């Protein structure tokens, strides 16, 4: 048996669930999310929210912890670039191969316009993330002093604001047509990650318990207990705030290690590989084949790109 960092463990499971769910949906369902599907289908919807929670957790750890405003801004921009550049390249790729174009999709604002998309990947996620990061870029420098002196309090304040915006968003606006893929409905999950981070590093049990309770209540309020997302978020939150490591089998750890490292690539490319299999396979196949193909092809792509990049840099200086 081996120990694994709980952050990475949850990340790996979350992305597996995203791919599985999409594979399942592509084969059987147009929509997902109700508890009946857990029993009558095998939907594992909820991974995307967990990824968002972890993103928020890591954001607090690596970006909000910067010692000055300019470092904060630089890190924030760096983080945004790492999301934007591959997403943009992939978007353009799909525009080209499908011979279609949409300016809003290119500008990553289509989630505010309609629920259609050309790109064959969950583009809503980078759209929502980049939109949130833009707002944070403007706001965080103004409250930088509080980030340094009262991070826990500030994160709770932001959480209240974002929960409010989610509730107002759900009950006031018609977001159904946008499939709710707008930042005001997801920001609270991202900020919840901050709350969890500050609770965890404080080592205070009361803060950790408080954070978990806030999560559960927010989930009930916004998601409702009849949605798998609720259980995903609560389970992930529980592990994230109360545990540092988790004990699992050596082989499983090896698999999850690779999956965790390849998370972003898997997220971006699994749907593309679904399409590839669809176009190329002469045989019929079920959702499991689709799932495994999506995961493994994405992992191979990630490993190839990583290896290429390392060898390229290592040998960059050979001159002919």
């Amino acid at each position, binding site marked *: 048996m081996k120990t*694994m960092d709980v952050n990475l463990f949850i990340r790996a499971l979350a992305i597996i669930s995203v791919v599985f769910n999409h594979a399942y949906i592509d084969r059987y369902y147009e929509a997902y999310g109700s508890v009946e599907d857990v029993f009558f289908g095998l939907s594992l919807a909820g991974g995307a929210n967990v990824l968002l929670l972890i993103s928020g957790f890591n954001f607090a750890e690596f970006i909000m912890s910067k010692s000055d405003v300019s470092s904060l801004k630089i*890190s924030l921009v760096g983080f945004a670039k790492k999301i934007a550049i591959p997403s943009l390249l992939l978007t353009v790729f799909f525009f080209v191969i499908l011979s279609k174009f949409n300016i809003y999709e290119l500008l990553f604002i289509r989630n505010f316009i309609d629920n259609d998309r050309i790109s064959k990947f969950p583009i809503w996620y980078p759209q929502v993330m980049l939109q949130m990061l833009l707002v944070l870029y403007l706001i965080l420098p103004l409250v930088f002093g509080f980030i340094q002196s009262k991070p826990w309090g500030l994160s709770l304040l932001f959480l209240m604001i974002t929960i409010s915006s989610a509730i107002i968003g759900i009950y006031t606006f018609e977001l159904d047509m946008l499939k709710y893929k707008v930042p005001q409905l997801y920001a609270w999950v991202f900020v919840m990650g901050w709350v969890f981070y500050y609770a965890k590093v404080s080592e205070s049990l009361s803060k950790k318990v408080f954070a978990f309770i806030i999560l559960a209540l927010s989930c009930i309020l916004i998601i409702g207990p009849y949605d798998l997302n609720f259980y995903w978020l609560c389970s992930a939150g529980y592990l994230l705030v109360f545990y540092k490591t988790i004990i699992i089998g050596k082989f499983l750890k090896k698999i999850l290690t690779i999956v965790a490292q390849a998370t972003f690539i898997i997220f971006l490319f699994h749907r593309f590989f679904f399409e590839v299999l669809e176009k190329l396979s002469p045989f019929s196949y079920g959702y499991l084949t689709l799932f495994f193909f999506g995961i493994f092809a994405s992992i191979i792509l990630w490993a190839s790109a990583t*290896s290429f990049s390392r060898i390229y840099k290592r040998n960059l200086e050979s001159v002919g």
Partner: protein
Amino acid sequence: MFFLNLDRFNDNVAIISGSEEITYRELAKKINNNSALKLPFKSLVFIKASNDLETIVAYLSNLVAGNIIYLYDSNNKSVVNNLIDIYNPNYLFENGEYTTLHSDKLSLHSETVLLLSTSGSTGTPKFVRLTGSNIDSNAAAIADYLELRPSDRALLHLKLHYSFGLSILNSYMSVGASVVLTNTTAMDASFGKLINKHNITSFSGVPFIFQTLDKASFDLSQYPSLRQITQAGGKMFKDDVLRWSKESIKNEIEFFVMYGQTEAAPRISYLPPKYVEQHPDSIGVAIPNGEILLVDDKKNIIREPNVEGELVYRGPNVMQGYASSLDDLAKGKVVSELYTGDIAKFNELGLFTIVGRSSRFVKLFGIRINLDDLEEYFNTLGQDVICTGDDTKIIVAHTGVSNPNAAISKLSKKINIPETCFQNMQLKVMPILSNNKVDYKAIKSLAHKNNKNYFRIFKFIFTKSFWKDYFKELFTTLGFLDKSLTVKKLFFREFPDNTSETASFKELGGDSMTYVTISMELDEIIGFLPERWESLSIKDLIELESKGGEL
């Protein structure tokens, strides 16, 4: 002063230039008739440094006249124009003629007679200011330890604007010996022929010249007139020194290793031939009337042998000081002793050895690395390379050696620096300064340019070695092969611009993406993932690695 009353050497042959041969008497007459002596006041004169008679006459005439001379490299007109703008010389001497630039009286120190550039025509306007006594005393000292005779004949192939070249002229003239001027270089096939044609008794060179002669299989036995060979202008590899020394002894030639700096006009020390075989990496002892000391960081004199310190020289040949502007030419002596910037030690015999030049050290991962030592190491592997770099990277430049990557790999393990800190760079031609020294600055600049050469980078993707490495890395990434990664290599891979071990992952600007990769690898390397590892310094993580996970 040696340059006064040269007619005292009567009809000894002074200069041979092409088919022209003039005696000291004739030379003195030419000097007396030179217009440099007819100037109304002390002037600043820029002389185009060609290895020809007119240049020598102009140089000596202006010395006699007490003017301030700057001998400039004729190949670098733009540099000279820049210097003319800064220093506003009165006259320019080129192609046998003086050109008057202006007739204003400049504020020039009465004792200064010579300006020498401290670099090989790279354009820096910084000069070393020397007096007549500086160059005279140094010429006499060199003639003394070399035991020069009036019958000696030196081949002057080194450039006159280079202090080593000029010192050959000065020292031979100081004893009434002959100098054969030539523009032939050691790379020319006719170099050897010249030696025999003029019965040359001595030639001199910098390490690069000796390497060139080695490649051309220069056979000393073919040159019976030779009695001395002198080497200066940089550290020659031990093996090369031994080889040249052995060959010299076989052919009854004295082989002198010498050391100096332009700031000392230029000779500081020499290694008597009898010590060369036993101490091939030594620079020997101070020249006559000179003194060498070592000082520590606090400027205390080191008196114990085998203790390293900065080499300091005292003697009548130490410069007045530097000049960076015209105003500086009015200054007198501001330097009493010369801090060379070289790190050295001496042994029980009192022979000094240069351990390294302070500018030839780099520091990577807290390890001080002597670039000269690295070159020596490659040399022992039979690889002729030049090493330069800075605190982020070591550049290994060569014009074609077999399998340099294997040597780099060996070296990286030996000195415990990741292989990726080394940049292997093959060049068509090694950039050399006009004083025949390696142009390290140009190599660094080329290295930087190559990193931006995207076409070359693109081409590299189609090489066999790239794909071999790629598949190996692919299988390693997927966990099918052992990674044999260390903490140091891991952090250098992810943060190639960082070579400090005191920084932590967070301080290096690590983000959530690199966090995942590094935590996975650390888990493998250390055996578990240390708590809050992202805030631990690289040094702490390395310690954990070495202690199997316990701090």
